[in-house]
């Protein structure tokens, strides 16, 4: 009963914050917008600049930001618990490097296989993340029954640097303009310009979150050790597999949508744990909501601090997330 009350309270509080941020974010930007005009249906759509700025330029960004922030933060929580490693991030297991490599190849080779209104770059990057996921899983499950978290970590880290080397190689061989685009892609960018990429990423994210919803009890026990979890009736191998696949899927979808936006997957889970404790039944939903609010806020800053020129959102998340996290760390100890 007390857990349920805490869950309702924490989720309610974080939900309110996230909702407030998501409602506030589309109203600010580099240009002043009249909300009354934006929602005035009597003005024809083609003439209503305010409505277009609101619905075409800002709302897709805010929605993409909240989806990516939520996915990366939740994936961070799941992977940190499953690997029993506080340094794990959604980018640790090579999934994001695979996604980045896919995007780099699509940009450098100018692949033109856009489908359902989504350009080739996000599709290629999602495929890249699936390939990386398959390689890491194959390596980690070849040794023994179930997954070896050690092999998983080492394989992920190695794959990360291997893919990073390939990325540098592709960038080096690409034309100058393409090289710049690839570098810019790696900084993260939420200006997606339409709702279609979000709709394309949504099914994968929803599937991942459906799995996240049943994981918290197993994650709580897994953090105490595989043997403890097994003795309490957790099918360790299965729980690890589900955690790995769902977190990787969420990461792949998020990265293919907005690029590898850094720091959210590591900073948000820790921040939330510092605020609400370590019970994953509370941490996971809280981190999901806080991640969404955090990235959307960072994107508002990215859009406005140097307006009309925009700062890459990955730079803002790192600049805010890094020092804030260190401050909390020092204060705690």
């Amino acid at each position, binding site marked *: 009963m007390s857990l349920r009350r805490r869950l309702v309270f924490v989720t309610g509080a974080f939900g309110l914050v996230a909702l407030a941020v998501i409602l506030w974010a589309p109203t600010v930007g580099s240009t002043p917008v009249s909300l009354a005009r934006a929602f005035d249906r009597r003005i024809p759509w*083609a003439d209503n*600049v305010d409505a277009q*700025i609101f619905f*075409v*330029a*800002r709302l897709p960004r805010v929605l993409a930001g909240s989806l990516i922030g939520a996915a990366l933060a939740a994936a961070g929580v799941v992977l940190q618990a499953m690997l029993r490693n506080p340094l794990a991030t959604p980018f640790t297991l090579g999934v994001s490097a695979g996604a980045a490599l896919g995007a780099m190849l699509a940009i450098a080779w100018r692949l033109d296989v856009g489908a359902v209104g*989504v350009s*080739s770059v996000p599709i290629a990057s999602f495929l890249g993340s699936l390939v990386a996921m398959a390689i890491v899983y194959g390596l980690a499950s070849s040794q023994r029954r179930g997954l070896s978290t050690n092999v998983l970590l080492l394989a992920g880290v190695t794959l990360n640097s291997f893919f990073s080397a390939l990325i540098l190689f592709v960038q080096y061989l690409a034309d100058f303009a393409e090289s710049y685009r690839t570098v810019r892609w790696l900084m993260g960018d939420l200006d*997606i310009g339409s709702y279609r990429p979000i709709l394309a990423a949504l099914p994968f994210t929803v599937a991942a979150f459906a799995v996240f919803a049943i994981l918290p009890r197993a994650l709580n026990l897994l953090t105490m050790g595989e043997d403890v979890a097994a003795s309490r009736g957790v099918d360790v191998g299965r729980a690890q597999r589900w955690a790995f696949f769902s977190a990787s899927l969420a990461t792949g979808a998020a990265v293919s949508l907005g690029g590898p936006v850094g720091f959210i997957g590591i900073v948000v889970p820790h921040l939330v744990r510092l605020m609400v404790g370590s019970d994953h039944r509370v941490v996971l939903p809280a981190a999901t909501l806080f991640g969404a609010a955090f990235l959307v806020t960072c994107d508002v800053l990215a859009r406005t601090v140097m307006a009309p020129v925009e700062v890459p959102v990955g730079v803002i998340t790192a600049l805010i997330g890094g020092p804030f996290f260190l401050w909390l760390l020092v204060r705690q100890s």
Partner: protein
Amino acid sequence: MNTKGTKMNTKATKMDTKATKSRGRSWLSLLSLFVIFVSSFVIFVSAFQAPQRIVSLVPAVTEMLFAIGAGPQVVAVSSYDREPPEVRTLPRVGALLDPDVERILSIRPDLVITYGSQTDLQQQLERASIALFDYRHAGLADITSTIRRLGGVTGHAAQAERTAGSIEDRLAEVRAKAAAGLRPRTLLVFGRERGALRNIYASGGRGFLHDMLEAAGGINVFADIARESVQATTELVLARAPDVILEVRSADIESDAEASREAQSWSPLASVPAVRNRRVIVLTGQGLTVPGPRVAEVVERMFQALHRTP
């Protein structure tokens, strides 16, 4: 005292010898004067002789060299050089970020054209006592001044003057025509993800692209942003509401059908006058964004695009 006397004695003897050989000496000095004169003349001439083995690491400058008749002196180019067709058979020696110093040295150039940021390469070449021609992209006026400077360095001053003068005449003609007509507010895009409104790169209020647009009679909607390139978000495009969107993306759009398909990508921004009045124009062809001798031609095309009735 004794030593002093001896010295004076020796001196006297020497003077005596000199006097007896004065005839031979004057011949010798005449000869040495002649040698000095000839050798200094050779050094003088060789110092001011036009370079015969030029390596160009900047595609725009390569085009200029060929335009002023210095093409036959070019022996190697960068890996990105495509124009004029003569360069396609020349050896490649790397480019802006990866100049191959060994290959450059092995070609034994007497002039290397470098970009301003290649400071390491410049130091290495200076150590090898190879003459440098330093270049940086700047405004439209710098194109013709660079052509003239190249003419002086390569010994083609007259032809360089003709080339630069003709570019300036053509630009002046376009400017005069543009001054008479309307000046549409224009967004000049030189990079964008295909088929989407992502990663839009447009010209800011600096550099040759901005100058070209203004010469062609357009008003740059980003003229207030003092940068060469601006990553334009959809919000910025909606807020600036350009009358014309002009895309110069020679690198990745080949056919006209593809160009009109790409112009369609802007349709979500229906309130932008350029989109509403179907004045999104995609210019196709190579070398649209090269600040070289073809710049007048591109400005003329821009003028036509900006002033043609939809």
